[in-house]
């Protein structure tokens, strides 16, 4: 079983991202489970979403304390939230940032990938310039860095999940896949 | 059929299940609810029952006051006028001169102020005249009726008979028709044209009025044999004499004579300082007329203000016009100088025990004589009927003609009403007696039975559901300024506008008469009241449980609970 944790801010779409990723993995034959941190959400406040994937039915119904990988939808969160808490050795930390991975001073136990999802989202007019919706883009980086899911399955899941701008979201996902730096 | 349901189930059947297996799974009526007529739970049932509003009950002319107020609320002034005209041919007149006992009876007076019925009536009467509205007449009949006296009683009797199709001729002694309305009431209270128009309306029904024909002098009662019935309504046109020493002096005159002369445009001899003796409406009319002729007027009355029989508004208006009042004072003798009035000696009075009239009896106080410096004394202490023209066979009673409640005299075919019979002294009572006599004459001539009188159920204030009403001020009657009034005989009261009439009519509780307010319909918890044609209501007694909520809530006591008569099939 692989457990993934996503950090974002209310309004960035972290919870939806977890659900899209779950759908993509399910499409590829995995058993999945996605859930938000249970509680109330406020726009801009730090939010967490979770994902479990396995080859067989997942019965576990508790929170994730020791994720295999984490995704950070807003690099600024690293200053305020311990995004690597409980992260297993060798786990990926996938960060939305224009900086190269080496600039993040994280423990050498982890692998770091970055993608400028904000710029990609703005280019594809997803959300606004000040609050781009980066959730579909960051999933491309997840596919690229972890290799746990194929980009085609992710793109298809994105198209199924978003109500509008299906093609723009799909292109953003692919662009992020191509632009991921590891 | 559903488990547990049962065909042919009867309401009065007590059902006990032997086993739960026979019972339905839930609490449900066994048969259809169409069978379960919950109306059978009732002990008493509500019925729509219009009662008598106190105003209607108090009106001597029997006007359906609540009815025309209700129509006025809706602005249906024409229909309101027609409704008055069913009972009273002189609404414009009565709206001015009636002492309005309806308002004293009005339940609203316990709440805030009584309805200004009088003012609404005047508006409606004037509305009818302005719009030239006419009443309908039934097919002509062959019988002829003679009426003696064209006062309110005679006019009323003639009007009601004419509407029924009778040919009516009125014989009037005065040169004008109207009786006291024409010769007794001053024009500032009742403009002549108003009276003439309403009389013209009566004549338009075929009534003929022959003026200047004095009964007993120009014609005898027996000369009217060409008529199948006679109605005598000659009124009371003689003033009661003062009966004090010096009464023969020049300058001692009588109220009725003064008012008649003024009304007929005859010359009147009157000084500058006038004493009016009496406290009734004639006294007020005489005093206020004298003031308009430039005199200084003092009213001398032997009781106190509370006992004055005049209409309170009249007294108030007289005071406004500068008339002095000497209460608890009675004339003792006229001080005569050169055969003319040189002054009036009076005596102070005190009030003793109540007399037959219910008012406290005045008792002279010895040694309290005082003088009034006056040159004219107007007697207005009462009036009497002239009965000298009456043939034998007509019985008399207390200075008038003896009649029963329908105006029937002791002589077959002869009827009587108004002051000469009843001595009631008011215009509306005269109008009412004329109407009653007309019904009696119709019964006499046609053989039709008269409707039996019933004991009216008059709605009391306590029966009104006050939760539904809010205080609302009575609309004021606009009046002329004092200076304008004293300059002549112009009418004092100006009358309601249409807007004021609408507002005032809205205040009516509609005591005891359903006015389709929907309260019962809305409140019925069993939805057992249906609205027919969006107006009338029908209680479905199959489902009315007799809870009485409709009766309790009805704002105007127009629904009653009555005992069920179960044993009557």
């Amino acid at each position, binding site marked *: 079983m692989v457990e993934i944790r996503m950090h974002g801010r209310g309004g960035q779409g972290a919870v939806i991202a977890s659900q899209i990723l779950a759908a993509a993995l399910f499409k590829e034959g995995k058993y999945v489970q996605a*859930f938000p941190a*249970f509680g109330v959400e406020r726009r801009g406040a730090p939010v967490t979403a979770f994902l479990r994937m396995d080859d067989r039915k997942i019965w576990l119904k*508790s929170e994730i304390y020791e994720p295999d990988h984490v995704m950070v939808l807003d690099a600024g969160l690293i200053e305020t939230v311990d995004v690597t808490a409980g992260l297993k050795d060798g786990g990926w930390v996938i960060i939305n940032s224009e900086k190269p991975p080496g600039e993040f001073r994280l423990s050498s136990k982890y692998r770091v990938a970055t993608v400028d999802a904000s710029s990609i989202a703005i280019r594809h007019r997803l959300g606004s310039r000040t609050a781009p919706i980066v959730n579909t883009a960051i999933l491309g980086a997840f596919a690229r860095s972890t290799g746990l899911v194929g980009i085609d399955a992710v793109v298809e899941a994105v198209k199924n999940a978003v109500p509008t701008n299906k093609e723009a979201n799909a292109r953003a996902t692919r662009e992020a896949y191509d632009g991921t730096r590891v | 059929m559903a488990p547990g349901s049962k065909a042919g189930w009867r309401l009065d059947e007590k059902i006990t299940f032997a086993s*739960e297996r026979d*019972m339905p*799974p839930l609490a449900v009526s066994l048969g259809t609810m169409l069978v379960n007529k919950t109306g059978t739970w009732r002990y008493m049932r509500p019925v729509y029952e219009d009662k008598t509003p106190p105003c209607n009950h108090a009106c001597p002319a029997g006007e359906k006051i609540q009815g025309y107020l209700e129509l006025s609320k809706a602005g249906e002034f024409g229909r309101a006028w027609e409704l008055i005209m069913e009972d009273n041919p002189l609404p414009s007149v009565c709206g001015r001169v009636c002492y309005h006992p309806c308002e004293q009876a009005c339940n609203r007076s316990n709440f805030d102020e009584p309805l200004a019925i009088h003012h609404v009536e005047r508006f409606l009467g004037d509305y009818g005249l302005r719009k030239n509205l006419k009443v309908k007449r039934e097919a002509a009949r062959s019988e002829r009726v003679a009426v003696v006296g064209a006062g309110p009683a005679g006019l009323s009797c003639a009007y009601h008979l004419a509407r029924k199709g009778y040919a009516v001729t009125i014989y009037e002694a005065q040169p004008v028709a109207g009786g006291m309305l024409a010769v007794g009431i001053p024009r500032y209270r009742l403009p002549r044209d108003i009276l003439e128009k309403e009389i013209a309306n009566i004549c338009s029904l075929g009534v003929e009025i022959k003026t200047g024909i004095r009964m007993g002098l120009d014609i005898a009662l027996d000369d009217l044999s060409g008529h199948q019935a006679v109605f005598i309504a000659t009124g009371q046109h003689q003033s009661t004499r003062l009966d004090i020493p010096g009464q023969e002096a020049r300058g001692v005159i009588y109220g009725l004579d003064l008012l008649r002369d003024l009304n007929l445009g005859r010359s009147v001899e009157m000084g500058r300082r006038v004493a009016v003796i009496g406290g009734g409406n004639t006294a007020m009319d005489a005093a206020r007329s004298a003031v308009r002729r430039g005199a200084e007027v003092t009213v001398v009355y032997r009781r106190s203000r509370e006992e004055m029989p005049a209409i309170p508004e009249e007294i108030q208006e007289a005071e406004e016009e500068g008339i002095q009042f000497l209460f608890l004072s009675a004339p003792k003798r006229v001080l005569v100088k050169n055969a003319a009035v040189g002054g009036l000696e009076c005596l102070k009075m005190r009030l003793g025990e109540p007399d037959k009239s219910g008012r406290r009896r005045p008792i002279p106080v010895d040694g309290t004589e005082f003088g009034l410096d006056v040159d004219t004394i107007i007697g207005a202490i009462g009036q009497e009927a002239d009965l000298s023209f009456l043939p034998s066979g007509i019985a008399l009673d207390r200075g008038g003609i003896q009649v029963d409640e329908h105006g029937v005299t002791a002589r077959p075919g002869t009827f009587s009403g108004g002051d000469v019979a009843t001595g009631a002294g008011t215009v509306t009572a005269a109008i009412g007696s004329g109407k009653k006599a007309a019904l009696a004459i119709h019964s006499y001539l046609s053989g039709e039975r008269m409707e039996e009188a019933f004991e009216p159920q008059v709605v009391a204030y306590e029966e009104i559901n006050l939760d539904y009403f809010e205080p609302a001020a009575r609309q004021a009657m606009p009046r002329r300024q004092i200076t304008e009034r004293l300059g002549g005989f112009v009418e004092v009261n100006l009358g309601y506008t249409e807007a004021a009439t609408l507002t005032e009519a809205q205040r009516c509780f509609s005591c005891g008469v359903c006015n389709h307010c929907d309260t019962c319909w809305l409140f019925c918890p069993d939805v057992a009241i249906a609205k027919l044609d969006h107006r009338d209501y029908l209680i479905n007694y199959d489902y009315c449980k007799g809870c009485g909520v409709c009766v309790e809530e009805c704002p105007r006591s127009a629904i009653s609970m009555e005992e069920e008569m179960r044993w009557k099939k």
Partner: protein
Amino acid sequence: MEKVIIGNYAVSYGAQLARVQVIAAYPITPQTQIVEKLAEMCASGELNARFIPVESEHSAMASTIGAAATGARAFTATSSQGLALMHEMIHWAAASRLPIVMANVNRALGPGWSIWADQNDSLSQRDTGWLQFYCESNQEVLDTVLQGYRIAEQVMLPVMINLDGFLLSHTSEPVDIPDQALVDRYLPLARRDLILDPDDPHSFGGLVNPEHYMEMRYKMHQAQLQSKEVAREADAQFKAIFGRSYGSIEGYRLEGAELALVTSGTIASTSRVAVDRLREQGEKVGLLKIRMFRPFPGEEVGELLGGFKKVAVIDRNISFGHGGIFCQELKSALYNLLKRPQVYGYIAGLGGRDVTPQTILDIAELTACRDVPPAEADWIGVKV
């Protein structure tokens, strides 16, 4: 068709597939998406039902009762305070013998204010005459909505389907959304007797005198008892058509076990993981999941647990002054057995406190090292 959906949508899809005709509901966290989804379906025409917006849960249940009384298939959903507000009408629905199905998202009651998972809301409605089911997966939620109508419409009692707040309501899982045609076969709409019908008016809910009230209650009780067999049949039919079944209770790796863990809802789900680990370690521990709480499947529980030495009941609820409610029910079901196990009571996960596999392992260990059950239930993880 399989879709990854949250538990709340599993409820909505279940109601849609059941072709409910009237929905009257008031939103409350964490139930809101059930109502939102159904309202969307009604608006878009995907579901041909009348959606009645109401001003409170009391009205929601009252409207649902009214709709069901006319013979319509009626649905509502609520949670926690909303369920509490419905209480009077909940009795009414059952005693009116109306086949309503309601989803209740288990949530703690305030104060202190809490929006997280806890069973005290639904268990407060234990004695109202409703059937109660507790689910551990989104698939089970959807399937139980369908089974619920099938059972309700046979025994004429309402059915409450419980799912843990957030742990199911907001968690996405793969769910097989059955074919409408198959559901229609499983759940045909039929005209019922004793309905509000203007052409044959009856009065409902009237006075029942002491001569008959007891019999009416006896019949309700009989219907509850009868529903055990009806539920068994409904589950078997469901398996025949859809290939899935749940049972009123389910034993998991009880063969050869010495300790049986007993629990419900998502704690049962997580307990499977813990049991697997214990078995891997050679510990003889199994699980009994209680899915149907009312009627209580006492005989089946007795059959499965009669031979055990120790039983540990984990309750995400508390009957103040006595202990866990499933534990009490279980004890009373076992009491008259000749050979009955010791019953250990544990309180865990109240107000959304996370119950992890470790929590279960701790409970198993605590039970194993004791000889006699303590007088009072243990509160696991409580900071005392």
